[in-house]
Each structure stands twice: as structure tokens, then as C-alpha cells.
């Protein structure tokens, strides 16, 4: 009673691609073509140098007409790469695009095997399976689903800002969600930018205020995405707006409340200044913060006790705010639900936690700094107004900058963070400018690949900054000779001179690397994305789809995808915006017709209903049969696999197609 019976009027055309040498080097393509040629149903079997090339595709179209082919199989690269290409070719040839099947003999055969005979046998088996399978293919129609034109941008760093502005200028409505009280991200903390040394604030703040002012942008700072449902073109996103105890619409940013806070002096750690400065319980992160709205820190505000409202404070801030009545101690967190068609994830990075490398003494020796701290230290608007004064009050006469802290290191992070060499040199330049100290860079290699970067390196050499090639072993305060007493000693093997050096300095700067946010994994799950092994979000294809993710309609920009400098982040943000615009302006997306449907033979046993995560399966009014709402169905096929009476069919993957594929791969020659 075998239910899988072949389709006897199939006229199959088979094409095996050499892909230059990529496939042909390990798979005997002519042999495969010859073999498939004699399989039942195969009318025509060819091997060709590049099937994806125009001539390759035209060949298919020509053959369809000339030989009356009604099924096409192409054995080449991964379907994830070119299935669409060939389906279009088949359609152009006058066939339903789904009378096509693709065999992956590159990524999963020629590239991963070393024995030509075995690789060829495998290619034959996979092709044989495809040929058997394609005979069962049905004509299917691509469903078109309208695309919601609004866009969500997650993360208000330079990448998110640029993406949001690009879309807004194109007339699209954008929601920009930022976790911190202000947008600006890491860039807002920088003093100057390499290699041009133009001031970060000067180029960033105009963009920030433009975001704040743009009519097409809804800016939700101090907010987080907590839930995402739906699919490309039709996402439903829930956003949590954390209470800042200030009514954003009423606050004018006059900051009278700050001036009049019961605390006369700022005395709480100032996050924006990396703890080098102090702020009050009511504060605005930094002068150019966007939105220009203050917030209250319930952990330290006298009107709260450990976050719980007590109403014990005199509330001088409220008096100061007066008629504006912007302060609202009773503010609760709010949840907003929005519908968007596309999402751009630009959640950025975190800097490496230097605590993981105790040998560099951060925390043990007060004069060891992270690069980000130094950015604030040399910053005119920083806690010391640009005066580089050490934690012990001295001004450094010698400074050591240690590169690759948390980069290119088996014990911590293996990747190169790409920006450290350049920003280390930038800081070297700025520190020299501010302190005239002797400056030593300790590097593994100088990576100055970028427009004007190498020139910047040369400039620093001319400025007399020292470069010592070697990975620093430790930073210590034990003096071997009197000259070292009271100094930080950097012990390093100078790999150019071939000697171990001890270099005493007053100040050590750790060039911390970039790494994924601690919560990258949960963000990934939230948006149904993948992460690379190092934890950065995974692009769909390293070359051809660098801003796409595996979830259609969700795009990546900036350092959440991999370490980048500002120009690259901005460029990628533009690309992501463009990808979003493609979907929006097209107005609809085409859905792979791999949804499931239920046959009349359904017995109404209800086994499938609880299995659908999208509640696409329901019972007919009379309760006699189950039905699938194809608009909701995402095509996983779980229900089809579970239907005890075989009454659910998943298009593109129906039982007889899969069975024939199984028989195909196993049939002996």
C-alpha cells in the first residue's frame, strides 16, 4: 500500500554547475550529469560552468521551450544563496517557479570534502533525490502580504541616529527607541574623532537635535523593547518606557530643578563621565542630551528610599519647576504597543571589562585608566574640563597606552576590535597635546587600514610618540631600581628589539576592546536573530547580505553586528535604511508558499491545534474539522508532521516530496 507513486509525465531538466573550480575541483560534474541523464523522467542533463550567470539562466529558459521540460533541478550552491535566482529563471522560461528544486553540492559537498570520488557519489545521490522529488512538485502561488510603512530603530547611537534620520527624511515614520536617558551612544562621550580630529560633539549633536526635532521621528529614550511578534511587514512590538519621574511633554529642559535640588553639591557617580564626575539625584546626563529632559534617580533621591516613594523630601525641585509641573514622583513605567513593517537593530557594543585582566592592575592602581575614561578626561566638557589630572592629583609626565586589552587574546576575546589602534593613537595625540608627557604605545600590530589612517600613524611617529611592539605582561608598582619607585612599571617583551623592558610611567591607559552587550543573547531572541560564536549579531551573508538578518524585515547597523569605526557604522546604517525602504516602497512582501493546509479527510481530532505557535489552526464552527489560517501560518510544518491521520499537507515539503527525497538519497546505483 505504498502511497508514494511517481509522476509519470514529468519531463525533467537537470543542470549541474561547475561554479568555476569551486565545485568542479572536487566533484566530477560531467560524471554527475551523465549519471542523472539516465534516471527515469530526466529528459535532459547538462553540466555548465556558471549556472547563476545570465547565459546559465537563459540556457534553462531555452531548454524549457525547446525540450518541453516541465521540471527543473539545478545542482550548484546553497539554496539559501541562489534558489530565488533559479526560480525566477524557471518562471521566465514559462513554468511555475516551484516546479524547481535545488541541490547544494558546494557549501555542503565540494567545499567540505577531500575525496573526489566520495564527493561525486554524494553529489549523485543528492541529485537523484532532487530529481525524484521534483516530479512531485505542485504549481504554487507566491502570496503577497502588505508591508506596514512605519519603521522601528532600536538603539540611539550614531548608527541608530543615522538610520532614523535617513528614513525620516525619506518621509517614513520612525520610532527610535533608546535604553539610556539620552541618545548619542558611545560617540557622545568621545572628545575628538580619528583621523581628522574633528570634535565628536560638533558633528554629533546637530544630528541629535535633528532627531529630537524631526516630525517623522518618535523618540522614546529611557525605553526598552520587551516583546516582538509578527513577521516581516507586520511586526507588533511592545516597548517599555521606564519612569524618569519627569513628564517629558511638560519639561522644558530649564534645569532649575537641578540647581535647586536639596543636594547643594553633586555627589553621586556620574555614569556618563564613567564615574570620574558626580551628579545630583535629579540630573541631565550631559549638556547636549537629547531629549533635553531631566530625570530623577530613585535610588538616591531623598524623596525615595531604595526606589520606593516616601514623600519625605522637601521637594525644592518641585518648587523650582513651579507652574510647569513637570515633576511627577508617581510616574510608573508604561508599555506602548506599535505596529511596524521593518526593524533596524543598532544596539551597539559594550567595552571590555578590564577586571578580567587583573595583571593590568585596573582598580588596584588608581592611575590605571580605561580608554573611555580618558576620553572624558581630555574632554573640554568632561569632569575636569579637559585637565588631565590623575586620581592622585598629579599630572602625568609619562603615559603608557596598552593596546588590544580584551582583543586578539585567546584568554578573553579573540577578535580584533578594529578601532583600538586608531583611538589609542588619537588619545596619544590628545594626551601629548594636554600634558606634553612622554607617551608609549604598546601594540601587537598597528592596524591603520582606512582613509587617512596610515597617514595619522605617520603623523604620530613624527610627533615623537613611542611605539613598542609587544604584548604587555603586567602593570606593577614594585620598583626594581630607585628610578622606578612610586611609578607604575609596564613589563613587556619588545619583540622588535628582542629584549624584555620595564618602562616606568605615571599613567596607564588600557585600550579596551569592543564586545557584544551582556544581554545580546536575550535581544537576539527578542528579534529572532542569530549570534556569531563571538556573540555579535549574525548577518544573513557575510558578503552579499551584510545588513540583513535571517529574519526578513530585520536589519543590522553598527557595532552590534561587529566592531566598527564611525564611518563604517554610518555607512551600514544607511545601507540598513535603504534595505528597509526597499520593502516599504515595494509595499508588499512575497511569502514563500510553504504554508500548510488541512484536507477534507480531517477527523477533527484536534491534535494539531495546540501545536501551532501562531494559533493559525482553529476548529470549524460545527467543530467537525480543523482549518488553517494561511495568513497566520509561517510554514514550519510541525502540524503536518504531527497529524495522526496524515490529513495536513505542507506545500513545498509535503510527505510524498520528502519521502521521495529520502528514497532518492538512499537508492543504490
Amino acid at each position, binding site marked *: 500500500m505504498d502511497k508514494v507513486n511517481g509522476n509519470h509525465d514529468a519531463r525533467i531538466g537537470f543542470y549541474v554547475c561547475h561554479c568555476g573550480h569551486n565545485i568542479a575541483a572536487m566533484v566530477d560534474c560531467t560524471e554527475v550529469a551523465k549519471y542523472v541523464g539516465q534516471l527515469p523522467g530526466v529528459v535532459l542533463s547538462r553540466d555548465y560552468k556558471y549556472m547563476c550567470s545570465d547565459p546559465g539562466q537563459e540556457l534553462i529558459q531555452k531548454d524549457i521551450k525547446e525540450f518541453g521540460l516541465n521540471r527543473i533541478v539545478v545542482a550548484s550552491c546553497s539554496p539559501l544563496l541562489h534558489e530565488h535566482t533559479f526560480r525566477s529563471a524557471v518562471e521566465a522560461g514559462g513554468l511555475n517557479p516551484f516546479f524547481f528544486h535545488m541541490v547544494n553540492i558546494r557549501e555542503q559537498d565540494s567545499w567540505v570534502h577531500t575525496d573526489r570520488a566520495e564527493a561525486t557519489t554524494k553529489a549523485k545521490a543528492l541529485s537523484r533525490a532532487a530529481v525524484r522529488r521534483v516530479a512531485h512538485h505542485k504549481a504554487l502561488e507566491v502570496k503577497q502580504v502588505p508591508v506596514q510603512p512605519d519603521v522601528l530603530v532600536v538603539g540611539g547611537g550614531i548608527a541608530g541616529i543615522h538610520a532614523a534620520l535617513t528614513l525620516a527624511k525619506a518621509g517614513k515614520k520612525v520610532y527610535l527607541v533608546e535604553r539610556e536617558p539620552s541618545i548619542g551612544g558611545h560617540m557622545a562621550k568621545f572628545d575628538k574623532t580619528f583621523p581628522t580630529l574633528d570634535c565628536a560633539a560638533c558633528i554629533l549633536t546637530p544630528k541629535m537635535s535633528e532627531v529630537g526635532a524631526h516630525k517623522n521621528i518618535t523618540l522614546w529614550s529611557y525605553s526598552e523593547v520587551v516583546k516582538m511578534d509578527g513577521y516581516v511587514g507586520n511586526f507588533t512590538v511592545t516597548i517599555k518606557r521606564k519612569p524618569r519621574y519627569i513628564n517629558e511633554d511638560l519639561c522644558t529642559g530649564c534645569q532649575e530643578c537641578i540647581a535647586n535640588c536639596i543636594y547643594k553639591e553633586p555627589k553621586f557617580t556620574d555614569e556618563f563621565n564613567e564615574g570620574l564626575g558626580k551628579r545630583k539625584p535629579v540630573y541631565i546626563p550631559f549638556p547636549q542630551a537629547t531629549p533635553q529632559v531631566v530625570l530623577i534617580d530613585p535610588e538616591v533621591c531623598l524623596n525615595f528610599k531604595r526606589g520606593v516613594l516616601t514623600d519625605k523630601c522637601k521637594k525644592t525641585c518641585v518648587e523650582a519647576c513651579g507652574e510647569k509641573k513637570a515633576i511627577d514622583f508617581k510616574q510608573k513605567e508604561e508599555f506602548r504597543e506599535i505596529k511596524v513593517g521593518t526593524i533596524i537593530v543598532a544596539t551597539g557594543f559594550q567595552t571590555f571589562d578590564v577586571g578580567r*585582566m587583573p*595583571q593590568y592592575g585596573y582598580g588596584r592602581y588608581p592611575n590605571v585608566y580605561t580608554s573611555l575614561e580618558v576620553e572624558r578626561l581630555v574632554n573640554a566638557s568632561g569632569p575636569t574640563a579637559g585637565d588631565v589630572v590623575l586620581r592622585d592629583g598629579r599630572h602625568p609626565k609619562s603615559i603608557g597606552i596598552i593596546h588590544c586589552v580584551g582583543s586578539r587574546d585567546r584568554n578573553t576575546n579573540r577578535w580584533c576590535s578594529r578601532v583600538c589602534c586608531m583611538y589609542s593613537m588619537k588619545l596619544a595625540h590628545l594626551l601629548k597635546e594636554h600634558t606634553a608627557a612622554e607617551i608609549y604605545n604598546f601594540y601587537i600590530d598597528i592596524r591603520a587600514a582606512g582613509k587617512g589612517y596610515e597617514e595619522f600613524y605617520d603623523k604620530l611617529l613624527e610627533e615623537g610618540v613611542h611605539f613598542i611592539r609587544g604584548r604587555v605582561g*603586567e602593570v*606593577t*608598582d*614594585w*620598583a626594581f631600581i630607585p628610578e622606578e*619607585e612610586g611609578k607604575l612599571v609596564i613589563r613587556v617583551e619588545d619583540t622588535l628589539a628582542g629584549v624584555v623592558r620595564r618602562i616606568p610611567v605615571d599613567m596607564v591607559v588600557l585600550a579596551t576592546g569592543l564586545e557584544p552587550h551582556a544581554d545580546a543573547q536575550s535581544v537576539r531572541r527578542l528579534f529572532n536573530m542569530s549570534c556569531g560564536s563571538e556573540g555579535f549579531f549574525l548577518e544573513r551573508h557575510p558578503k552579499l547580505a551584510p545588513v540583513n538578518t535571517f529574519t526578513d524585515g530585520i536589519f543590522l547597523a553598527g557595532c552590534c553586528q561587529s566592531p566598527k569605526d564611525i564611518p563604517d557604522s554610518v555607512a551600514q546604517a544607511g545601507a540598513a535604511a535603504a534595505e528597509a525602504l526597499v520593502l516599504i516602497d515595494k509595499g508588499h512582501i512575497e511569502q514563500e508558499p510553504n504554508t500548510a493546509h488541512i484536507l477534507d479527510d480531517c477527523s477533527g481530532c484536534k491534535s494539531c491545534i495546540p501545536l501551532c505557535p501562531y494559533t493559525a489552526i482553529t476548529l470549524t464552527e460545527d467543530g467537525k474539522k480543523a482549518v488553517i489560517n494561511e495568513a497566520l501560518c509561517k510554514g514550519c510544518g510541525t502540524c503536518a508532521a504531527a497529524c495522526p491521520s496524515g490529513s495536513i499537507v505542507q506545500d513545498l515539503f509535503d510527505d510524498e516530496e520528502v519521502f521521495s527525497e529520502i528514497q532518492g538519497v538512499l537508492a543504490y546505483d
Partner: protein
Amino acid sequence: MKYSYFPGCSLKGTGRAYEESLLPVLKALGVELEELDDWNCCGATAYMAVDEVKACVMASRNLAIAEKAGHQELLAPCSACYLVLNKTKHYLHESPVVEAVVQKALHQANLTYSGNTPVRHPLDVLVNNVGIDAIKKRVTQPLKGLKVAPYYGCQIVRPYATFDDQYNPTTMDRLLEAIGCTMVTYPLKTRCCGGSLTGTLPEPGLLCAYVLLKEAIARGADVIATVCPLCQFNLDCYRDKMASKWGDETIPDPRNPAARISVGPQLNMPVVYFTQLLGLAFGFSEKELGLHRGFTPMRKPACARAQPAAA
């Protein structure tokens, strides 16, 4: 708590003070030791340098015997033994070649080794199994105010950081603080003591050892506590040579930063095993703990003589 005990050559020889103090201290804390029957050289010293695989064979014989002894983990107080035994375990897991040779050799002796016996260091056991609190309870004469420079040496944290931080180990600090000592900041915790260089290339060897003493002096320590027989030996036995070489070097006076003192006279600082300090705090006598054996013997600090100590 019961452990197989691998003393190794040192603890029966130059480092016997270590054994003399370790045994009563562990006993006092209810840790039983059972010395390995018919143990042999751990395989350290020259072997590792000459033929690693053969060294592994030596080591694994001990491991095999321990496994045969059953149930217990193996306690290896000497840093060299501790390292070689652990290294052997790693090699056996990582390299089928080494494993083959070793198993073959063991087979000749009708032994087998599954590669699973845990090798433990006293510091590890004291902190993670016995526990600081249990130790505090046992203290009868806290060493109040004794300034100690904690010196771990290289072998228990390199290349394998098994139970403590590789760059800044702290187990000994926590132990000795628990018995009342004051730990001085000592950045050379894991720096080389000179190893066997002191025997082969005295110049650099001695320098290594000297630097350690000098820094302990500069940090105002009364005593250096160590976990390794070789470290103890190198720091303890060459003071005269050091004195003649660098005796008149001067360093800032730890008690008065403005002034400077010369190193020479200070060099005779006691270098003891951490177990000896534990022993003192537990009320054992200098003799019981082998404190008299050091070239610079250590006297029980005044604070610890006051009987009985207020907890």
C-alpha cells in the same frame, strides 16, 4: 574528609618542615591523610625537561596507585608535584600518543589509570573543603598584627589556574587573614623564585630570589609565607650571598617613606610555609611545626604567646 597523600621527595627532605606543619594542621581540622603506598618520584625536576612522556609515566604510576587506593582524591602539597601530576592528567586526556605509552608502561606493572583521580593542593582543600569558618573556629592564638607577604610561586597557578586566579591568587591571603595576620600588598606573588637556576646559573637565579625578599622588606613584611619547598629553599638559603652582592642597596623605609634604609640588615626575614603560620595560630609550638629548621628560624610572635587568645 580523607585524602590520599603524595609527599614527594621534598617534604621528606629539604622541605620536611612543610610536612611537619601540614600533618598536624590538617589533623587538627579533621582532615585524614593516607600516604600513598610505594609512591615514586613525581616526575618533576630534570625528567620533564629531558623526556616529558617518561615523566608522565612516572607521574601516572602515582596516580594509578592513588586510583587503586580507591575513593580518595590525591593531595600533593609540593608545587612541583602538584603541577606535574596535573600536567600528566591533561596530557593523558589531550594526547592519545602519550596515553598509549603510559598505559602500556602501567600495564607492565599491572596498573591502570582512568585519568580521573583529582589532584588537590592543600590551599584548595583548606579554603574550598574545610572552609575559612572552620579554620577560624580552630584558632586559639591569632597572629594579630603579624605582617605577612604572601608568596605563591609560579607552579600552582601556571600554566593551569586550577583553583585560584592566575595573575592575582588570593587563597593564601584569605587563609592567613582568617588567623589574624595582616597581608601586605605583594605584587610579586607569582614571580619566579629562581627555581633550579640558583644551582645552575647562580647570577640570575639569585637575583630572582633577592628581588622577592627586597620587595617584601620594602612592603614592611615581618615574614614571607610560601607554599613551595623550592621557593622556600631559594629565599631562605642564600641570604649571605645576596647580602654580599646587594647588601648596601637602599630602599624607602616602609615605616617612614621620607627616609631610606639599606637592604642588607633586613635580609634575614623568616621565610615559612603557610601551614607553619596556621600551626602557630592553632597553638602548636615552634618545634612541632619545624620552625627551627629555617636558616632564619621564626619565633612565635609575641601576640601569639599571650595565652589564651581572645578570639
